[in-house]
């Protein structure tokens, strides 16, 4: 099978590496390999119908800042330049409009391609439209990497907890906020903790999406739609960020055996992102940049999962599981 990687930042490069590293696995499982025939960044693209060399295109990106030497004005022109089966959509998230990711996913599905994405924006804004489009064209649209990075949650509910009523899911879905709140636990004021998160590379220069809870809200919407069968969109989420959490509040919580964490909560009736008081030792009191989710199930009671919520190889691991899912269906394992 052939894949096209749209977006060649940290995640795109990691996906290219992982696909290259798993050639033996694909051969053994399917009797054929998965090759990357196209890769695209914000300005350029490169394609080869016989497969691209992952090391070479990563090296080119590092040296020149561009993945290829062909410039484009319309992404469709790049996507049409080579035949492929799976679009791996990992351009940067735009939660206001869905950005180019939304256009790319639409275009790929309309043109008979399966899509794997870690891009939250399009799904948080247009979940119903995109899944309907995929169904209409008999294509797969898989997105495990959109929630919790390496932490398995969508496929866990879809496969391992299939048939059970999921009563609620609540969790830490933003590692940046959790890092900041953990630093505040040890006495740092919000501004200093944020600055440290930026220096460590956990927070963007503009941290709005993280600290205002928008990033977590996108994930809550995706869980609501994919697991609870709701037709929710970003604007339906009741969002409170962490910018008003001060040292006093953190100290007051600590003196009473609790910590403050930004929690996303979703159920059949609830869609919320808000700072919450969590008893120390509770699964949701996790420190650092990890993501965690507590799934309340019909028969199995509470199930807690956690994992690294962001990063190239971690998100690539979620993307790999979706690719395998598609290859299992298309080729058979």
């Amino acid at each position, binding site marked *: 099978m052939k894949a096209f990687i749209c977006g060649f930042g940290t995640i795109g490069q990691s996906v290219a590496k992982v696909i290259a590293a798993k050639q033996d696995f694909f051969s053994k499982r399917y009797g054929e390999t998965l090759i990357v025939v196209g890769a695209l960044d914000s300005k350029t693209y490169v394609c080869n119908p016989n497969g691209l060399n992952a090391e070479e295109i990563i090296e080119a990106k590092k040296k020149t800042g561009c993945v290829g030497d062909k410039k484009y004005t319309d992404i469709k022109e790049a996507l049409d330049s080579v035949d492929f089966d799976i679009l791996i959509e990992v351009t940067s998230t735009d939660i206001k409009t869905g950005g180019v990711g939304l256009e790319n996913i639409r275009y790929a599905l309309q043109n008979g391609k399966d899509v794997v994405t870690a891009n939250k924006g399009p799904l948080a804004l247009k979940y119903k439209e995109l899944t309907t489009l995929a169904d209409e064209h008999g294509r797969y649209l898989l997105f495990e990497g959109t929630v919790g990075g390496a932490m398995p949650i969508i496929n866990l509910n879809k496969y391992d907890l299939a048939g059970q009523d999921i009563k609620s899911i*609540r969790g830490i879905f933003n590692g940046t906020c959790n890092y900041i709140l953990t630093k505040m636990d040890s006495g740092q004021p919000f501004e200093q903790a944020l600055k440290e998160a930026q220096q460590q590379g956990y927070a963007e220069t503009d941290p709005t999406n993280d600290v205002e809870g928008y990033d977590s809200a996108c994930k809550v919407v995706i869980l609501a739609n994919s697991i609870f069968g709701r037709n929710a969109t970003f604007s339906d989420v009741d969002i*409170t960020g962490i910018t*008003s*959490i*001060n*040292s*006093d*509040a953190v*100290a*007051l*919580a600590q003196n*009473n055996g*609790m910590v*403050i964490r930004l*929690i996303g909560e979703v159920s059949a009736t609830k869609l919320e992102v*808000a*700072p*919450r*008081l*969590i*008893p120390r030792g*509770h699964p*949701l009191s996790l420190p650092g940049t990890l993501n965690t989710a507590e799934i309340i199930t019909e028969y199995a009671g509470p199930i807690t999962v956690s994992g690294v919520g962001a990063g190239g190889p971690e998100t690539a691991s979620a993307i790999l599981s979706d690719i395998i899912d598609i290859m299992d269906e298309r080729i058979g394992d």
Partner: protein
Amino acid sequence: MAVGRSIGAKMIVNAELFVNDLPGQLIGSIEPISMVDGNILGVVHNRDRIVDHRICVNVTFEVGDRQLERLKELWKARDIVISSLGSVHETYTMDYILIGDVNAQYIEGLLKKINEATTLDEVNVSYSSKSVRTASHTSLITVKARYEDNLDKIDAILRRECKKANVTYVRGV
């Protein structure tokens, strides 16, 4: 057809009973607890304590508060003497931290509104030590309610009032 029965809020009860010193009386004293859907947590058959030819049985159990009167009637009907009955209600606790312009007067007003809408078993309010001197205050409110539904009502009131006053409200899980 099964008929649903409201048992009310769960409470833990310790009862000191005196039963006739006859075979089967111990079982006869604890059987009514099961008849009212109670859950026996412990039984001490104190044969050293005899009053008027009756032996002391000390039993601790969990039961819905609306079932307690029926249980007492069942015991009386079996000629079991209730010497003492002590209870502890199970309560639901929720913590809230409010951040913003929340001085003691504001909190008092909030609690008044909550009390008008629902019943609280216990309320504790504490303020961060720093907040005494600054304009922006931070306070922790811990409420205990007998019914879980009451917490939902409290939650709705706090959410509404805090939004109105531009106060950040952080609740427990």
